[in-house]
């Protein structure tokens, strides 16, 4: 079941996905209350579940620590600085934290179901962005695993050398910065040469062997997301739950 759904979500045009996700995120930010938050949380969780992303433990740790830290700091600010009652402070804090979680979940869904090359093609073919610029995203993403590998190796070598000391944490950071910058620049120059020598940027347009298009699936997906958002806002009026502009 989820396998087929994942395939279907992957088939959706990246530009449509990007638009739908952006609208959803802005809805939560601009019209926040318990109803819009719960609806968006449910939709984003469902999308993440269906897209089955492979999440690295470091990312999960980062997400968890961000949420916990944000929740704690916000609650302290609401109670101590603004002087809200603990229960109201907790309610408002949880709403705000949920908003962060929703943004993270929508982003996970987008990244898990969108190939960098499809995104570049869609930006060029549907949004008419010059392909040189749309491929920049793609090439930047291409560099991430290499940079991560370099960084892992560098940290390991510093551990071996005895540079990883709690008493001098800056030593590690300073010692990694120069070689990392050097390797990133060198790799970028090489990749740039490899691309240009293969005709990248020679002509203002290019052929796409796999062209992205807007299909009925894209229209249905976009309509479904917008309908859910409208329903959540309408329900807020029906149940008289005030919408808050919360930036």
């Amino acid at each position, binding site marked *: 079941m989820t396998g087929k759904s994942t395939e279907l979500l992957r088939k959706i045009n990246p530009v449509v996905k990007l638009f739908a996700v952006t609208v959803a995120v802005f809805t939560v930010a601009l019209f926040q209350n318990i109803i819009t938050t719960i609806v968006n949380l449910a939709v984003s969780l469902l999308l993440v579940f269906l897209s089955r992303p492979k999440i690295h433990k470091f990312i999960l740790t980062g997400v968890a620590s961000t949420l916990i830290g944000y929740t704690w700091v916000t609650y302290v600010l609401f109670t101590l600085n603004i002087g809200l009652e603990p229960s109201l402070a907790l309610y408002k804090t949880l709403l705000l934290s949920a908003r962060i979680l929703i943004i993270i979940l929508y982003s996970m869904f987008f990244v898990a179901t969108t190939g960098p090359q499809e995104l570049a093609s869609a930006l060029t073919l549907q949004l008419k962005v010059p392909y040189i610029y749309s491929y920049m995203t793609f090439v930047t993403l291409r560099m991430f695993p290499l940079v991560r590998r370099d960084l892992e190796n560098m940290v390991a070598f510093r551990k*071996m050398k005895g540079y990883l000391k709690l008493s001098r944490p800056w030593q590690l950071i300073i010692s990694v910065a120069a070689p990392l910058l050097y390797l990133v620049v060198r790799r970028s120059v090489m990749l740039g040469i490899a691309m240009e*020598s293969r005709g990248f940027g020679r002509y203002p347009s290019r052929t796409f062997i796999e062209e992205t298009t807007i299909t009925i699936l894209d229209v249905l997906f976009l309509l479904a997301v917008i309908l859910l958002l409208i329903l959540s806002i309408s329900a807020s009026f029906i149940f008289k739950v005030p919408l808050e502009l919360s930036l």
Partner: protein
Amino acid sequence: METVSVDSLSVSLGFKEFPVIRDVSFTLRSGETLLVLGPTGSGKSTLLLALSGVIPELIVGKVEGDIRIVGHDPASEGLRGIAGDVGIVFQDPEAQIIMDSVFEEVAFPLENFLYPKESIFERVEKCLEDTYLAPYKNEQTDTLSTGLKQRLALASVLCFKPKVLLLDEPTAHIDPKSSLAIYQILRRYKSEGGTIILVEHRLDYLEGLIDKILFLNNGRGILASNFNELLEKIPFESLTQAGIWLPFSTLKNRSELSKPVVDFSRANTTREDSVVMAEKLSVIIDQKAVLKNVSFKVSRGELLIIVGPNGSGKTTLLRVIAGLIKRYSGSVIVLGRRPALSQVAYVSQIPEHQFTERKVIEEVVSGLIAGGLSREKALKVAMKTLEDRGLSHLAESGVYEISQGEKRLISLIEMELLDRPILLLDEPTFGLDLRHTVSVLKWIESMLDKRKTVIMVTHDTWVLPLLNARLIGLSEGKIIFQGFFSDLLKQQRVWEGLNFSPPPVFREAFSSEQIEIAMREMRNAVFSTYDR
């Protein structure tokens, strides 16, 4: 009609006035190949970057003289201007693979050159067949071995049929069989009228490919049509001093073969006091079994060399022993306990990963100071070591400014000074000229003399007879061979699995006696010529 014409070319890098290349001239016709030789840091890569228009378009520099490539002037037209007529392949495949899948990678240039969609599919299919990559058509590029990635980079260039190919050590990172496959493809390209300018240290594979040789040294270029002519123009000592890999027949005739220069007895030392023991070691990375039931032992003071094709698990094995990979099944004992970074010194394929400082001397002392030595004492030890290795002139140089060979030697010295009982070396000779390579081999021998244990991964098959160590052959994560080089030569059934191809001098050696004589001759010829 000349395809490439270079007249009085001088190239300076950055804003420096002193040129890296001075007054170099040559011409090439369609179907000809130029081999560019020279010591590490002599300007070979700079020449290719100038010919491709990268200098001055993408890398700051000054190009003087006249260059014509298929009617283009790269200095004024830049890389984009000559794209389509000229193809470039570098030594590092990681830095030139752009797309996610094999098919997309080969199609990438055709899409850029606005080929119609239908003809792209036809051309890509044909190109994948010609480069023996058809079985990998739908594979993700990230999952390919280094050898396949390099072949893919070549396929992606050949698909648009450039008239000139610029190749910068295209086989530096890859195993012998993959290298042979690449040169087979290049021979076909040449026979179809393609012109090649090739920088390459390893001459084993170039038979029948080279029409001209350009020797670069101290910026000057000397042109010859073959090695004999090159030897007439340049003294033998100058070539060997520059670390040029001369054909073994030439070395053999010039060196004193009667005097054995290197002791063979080390390989036969009794194995006791195991410092590394692996028992049924298996490693799974990204749901793929990289090592499967690997068992072996290494003794104190022993040199163990791990060979095998790209992607066979060699570096993974080294990283497990180093304690960099902690998730594995089976047992690994290093110096009586679980692997830990504090027990070993590890020399990476990329020296820059190790570097923490700006200057060479600071880099060499950094490990000593981190280990608790006072700065004054550390400086003394570091200077003494640099002097002993003939590298004291580099002390005040920046670590990123020295040549790749020098970076490699500095990284070895740095690890040596950590004074760990076990040294792990990942491709320590890759990309080095023969003089630097011999320096690395001598360094390894000096470590063994100090009873250090050395475990080394290499693709350079010609290094094996020079070191005569125990070998482990890995194929698809399994050990399929254990023994010495002479045993490997006799067990042809494992060559396929190891992507092994013996150096040319051993192709006629069949009996144990012939093998031993060939090994001794090779060691004597190489060490007596290059270790001066």
